Each structure stands twice: as structure tokens, then as C-alpha cells.
């Protein structure tokens, strides 16, 4: 073969015609793209927020070492907590509840707390969303199987007036998790003991 590059060029152009035809845009395409974008932006904003909070905290400590200088920007427990042990349970937010009251962070895409703890037995979950963004709560058992979910609601003024309540049945001890269907990056733990 005397001129391999030319021959290769011809072969590639011929073969390119065999490539599958492009299907029409899937109706879910835009939704999938926007969801990826939203996750990417949220992660970027979260990273920037952490960086700013870190700088603020370091500056505050350097300038005013008194304890009153510290002003936390977000709840102390991170939303994405590592797998819980009983040690972690001790640091879980709030008192053990017989009913679980979940709220949404007022300014960020996350639940107000990264961890809720409850007493084993019959439980109800009440969900209050005072933001303009639609959220719901999906409850997953320790095997990560979703078994209950609230309505998708937003702030007062909508049909559900920002509140929904569901019966979780009788829960055994275990580490359950809470997520939001609308914003998969929202995650919290429900520790039942």
C-alpha cells in the first residue's frame, strides 16, 4: 500500500457512514442534563462555602480567640456523614424522639440536620419544608430499601402548605437513611435505637 494515510482517510470516511443514526432528542435529555448541572453547581457552591467558612473560622480564631467569636454557618453535623457507629449516635443531633421531625435547611440544599435519632418502636415522621424549593423525604431501611416517602411539598401557600406527616410503622434498631427524590444529594441519617 503506497499511500497508507490517504487510504486510511478513505476507510475512516467510509466507515463513519456506517455509524448509527442519531436518535431524536429524548424528552428526558434536558432534565438529565440540568440535573447533572445542578449537582455540579451544588457541589461547587458547597466546596466554596466550606472554604469560606474555613477562612472565616480561622480568621475569627486568630483575631478574637474568645469563644464568642465562633459563629457556625451551618449545622454542626455534616449532611453526608460517614457510616454511623454507636459513637456517632452519641453525637447525633437532638434528643431521641418518639416522632421524627425533619425540616429543610433554610438556605442550602440539605436537610436541617445530618442526623436524627429516634426510639425503636412505632414512629411517625413529620416533614416541614419552609423553603420555596420542592422537597420530599424518602426513608430507606438499613439495607437501603426505600419503604416510605412523604409528599413533595414546598413553602406554605402550596397545596400541602409546607407540611406532611407519614406513619413509618414499627422500626427496629438500625441505621436508616433519609433522602429527597427531587435532590438526590440531600441525605441524612435516621438512627433508631
Amino acid at each position: 500500500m503506497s499511500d497508507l494515510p490517504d487510504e486510511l482517510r478513505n476507510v475512516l470516511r467510509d466507515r463513519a457512514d456506517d455509524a448509527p443514526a442519531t436518535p431524536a432528542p429524548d424528552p428526558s435529555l434536558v432534565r438529565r442534563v440540568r440535573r447533572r448541572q445542578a449537582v455540579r453547581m451544588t457541589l461547587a457552591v458547597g466546596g466554596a462555602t466550606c472554604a469560606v467558612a474555613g477562612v472565616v473560622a480561622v480568621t475569627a480564631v486568630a483575631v478574637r480567640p474568645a469563644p464568642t467569636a465562633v459563629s457556625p454557618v451551618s449545622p454542626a453535623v455534616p449532611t453526608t456523614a460517614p457510616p454511623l457507629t454507636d459513637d456517632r449516635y452519641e453525637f447525633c443531633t437532638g434528643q431521641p424522639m418518639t416522632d421524627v421531625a425533619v425540616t429543610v435547611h433554610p438556605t442550602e440544599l440539605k436537610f436541617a440536620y445530618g442526623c436524627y435519632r429516634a426510639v425503636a418502636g412505632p414512629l411517625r415522621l413529620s416533614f416541614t419544608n419552609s423553603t420555596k424549593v420542592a422537597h420530599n423525604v424518602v426513608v430507606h431501611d438499613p439495607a437501603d430499601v426505600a419503604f416510605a416517602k412523604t409528599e413533595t411539598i414546598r413553602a406554605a401557600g402550596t397545596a400541602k402548605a409546607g407540611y406532611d406527616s407519614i406513619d413509618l410503622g414499627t422500626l427496629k434498631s438500625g441505621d436508616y437513611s433519609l433522602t429527597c427524590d427531587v435532590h438526590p444529594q440531600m441525605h441524612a441519617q435516621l438512627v433508631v435505637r
Partner: protein
Amino acid sequence: VTATAVADGGRAGLLASPARVTELYRAHLPGATRLAYLLTGDRAAAEDVAQDAFLRAASRLGALRDDAAFGGYLHKAVLNAVRNRARRQRLERRHAQPPPPTYAELPDVATRDRLWTALLRLPHRQRAALVLRFYLDLSEADTADRLGCRPGTVKSAVARGLAALRTELSPDPEVPDE
């Protein structure tokens, strides 16, 4: 930019508009599919790779000021997706299948088919360099940019790829009669 703005109605200005996504899809996906097909030699895989690469590239539209740059960005996403797929396949082959037949075992096919078969057998970087250089007619610098390497690396990959193709296509040395 706040997370809330991303999640509520304010995101209209931050996220790609449906019309922009659809327009980019129509303009760039056919080319991406052809590129993926030339790199994989597999129609089904090409569709999957191109769709996945488009989603990845489109999710970064917010950082892209000029839609003209989207094509190059999509090419990189396709190349990465194909490379990852090749790695997975290599692992699977290592554990599950015998090695592909050598050229001598293949039936005698037309030269162009032999060239195509030989091309698909090249290592990913050599194949990608040849496709970018001879199908998309990119310069060495542009090819290096897409592949994330230096122009010198492209030059050697192309030279080695062509040499390998020549070797594959050269007639077998005649066996002397007894």
C-alpha cells in the same frame, strides 16, 4: 450563586435552556457518534458512548461561554469514555475470553476491511491519534489537546500506528517450497 438559586426558579438563568441543549445535541451528537464508532467499531457501544459523553459535556455548559468550544469538549468526553470502556474490556478479556485472533487467522478480506480490522486492533492512543488526525483532519497540536498529551506524543503515536498498520497489511513472507 447560591444553592437555593440552583434549586428554584432562579436556576433558569444558571442552567442550560432546553432549546440550547437540544440545539447542541442536534449539532454535535451525530459527529460524536461517528467518532465513537470509529474508535470502538461497535455501533451499539458508539451510541452509548456518545450519549454518555454528551451528558457529561452538557453538564458543564455553565462554564462554557462559547458554544463553538462545545465540539472540542465533546470530543474529549468521547475519547475518555472510549478509553474507559477499552480498559474495562481489557480486564474482562483477561479473565473471560481467549485473545483475539491474529491477522493471519482472519479470512482473506478486502484491503479496506483489513485496514479497518487492523485499526481496531491498535492500542487506544494510537487509534485515537489516527482517527483524530486522518478523520477529523486535526493538526498535531489540536490532536494533542484532545488527547491531553504533547504534540510530540501525537507524532510518535501516529507514526507507530501507521507502522503497525503497514506491518499488519504487508503480505506474509512466502514459505519456501520443499
